[in-house]
């Protein structure tokens, strides 16, 4: 049961985006469509899980003084792998995520989990932690992406979900930078209200 807890905490209770406010740059930058959100979320999940595994494996081998550089090397390697693989097999998504794939390296969620969890735990919990956090991150991205895509383009995952009149002149600001910030702020406010209501 404890393992389930490790896995599920990232969804709501310790959601990296909404609760811990980590990894904000990709959260806002790539969520102008749900497709991008999923792509980014899964890429980050992959890096997070793999680096958690490796780090929990080698944690006893590396001196603590240089652990951060070591973590960064591990993470950067996986990021590069994701980068290359996505470029090869999903070139469209790779193109629209652009700069933000290499920037997964500096996503504080990943280094944060490596430092706070994987470097202190065994492999299995680390995998679950990475998967859970990664999926929580993906979930957050998809939520924001959905709102932005529906409002800003009248579509969801590329499918029309709003009346045609709306799709013709949607509330564009939602997929622009200002809309991203404001929607994020309002969502966090909403979560605060819900949490307080509990």
């Amino acid at each position, binding site marked *: 049961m404890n393992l389930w807890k490790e896995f599920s905490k990232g969804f709501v209770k310790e959601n990296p985006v909404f609760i811990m406010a980590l990894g904000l740059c990709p959260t806002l930058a790539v969520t102008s469509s749900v497709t991008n959100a999923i792509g980014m979320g899964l890429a980050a999940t992959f890096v997070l899980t793999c680096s958690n595994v490796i780090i929990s494996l*080698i944690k006893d*081998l*590396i*001196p603590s*003084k*240089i652990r951060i*550089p*070591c973590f960064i*090397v*591990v993470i*950067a*390697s996986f990021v*590069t*792998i994701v980068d*290359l*693989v996505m*470029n*090869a*097999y999903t*070139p469209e998504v790779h193109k629209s995520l652009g700069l933000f794939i290499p920037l997964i390296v500096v996503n504080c969620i990943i280094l944060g989990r490596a430092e706070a969890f994987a470097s202190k735990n065994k492999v299995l919990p680390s995998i679950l932690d990475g998967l859970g956090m990664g999926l929580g991150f993906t979930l957050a991205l998809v939520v924001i992406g959905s709102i932005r895509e529906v409002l800003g383009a009248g579509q969801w995952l590329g499918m029309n979900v709003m009346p045609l009149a709306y799709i013709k002149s949607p509330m*564009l600001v939602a*997929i*622009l930078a200002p809309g991203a910030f404001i929607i994020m702020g309002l969502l966090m406010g909403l979560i605060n209200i819900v949490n307080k209501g509990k």
Partner: protein
Amino acid sequence: MNYFVKLGLVLLLITAIASGILAFVNGLTSEKIKANKLVAEQEARKEVLSEASRFEKQTVTLPAVETEPNPLKNKVEAGPRQFIYYLGYNDESAIVGYTFVASQYGYSSEVKTMVGVNLDMSIARIKVIEQSETPGLGANAATADFQGRFVDMNQEQLQVDKDGGAIKSLTGATITSRAVTNSIAEGMKILADAMTEEGK
């Protein structure tokens, strides 16, 4: 001191392993990435010149134009400019038209357009392949509606309506419209010159 050497060695080892793995992955994917690019271009060409099934690269050397280099960017190799276009062949190996990529800076980005040209030097179709203009305004250049406005246009008509041409510009985005139109017009001119030269 020994301790620090050890630290360095550990880090070096990890980096080396990582580099090795990455080199391996890179080897696996690099061909695919290159191929992707070619395929994408090929597909865009097919889209604007649907009758063609095979394309052949042609290069026109243009007289060098004195342009002031941007002192903050890497130097582009000097020398004559090259204009690249493709001859489109159908299954019977007959030429059915030409394609080229037109490019010009628009409102906030370089707008690249793939242009398909019929043998009579009218436009078959165009496709905006790269831009990051303002969504809702300039970005509408990538819509089928706007791209459709170019079909069958000839070189004389290639100007936006505000400049007296036949291309109806996008609402509120004259600059982008102008960039697309003018870049195509320029390419058409070079292409036409190249054709007449060949004809001689």
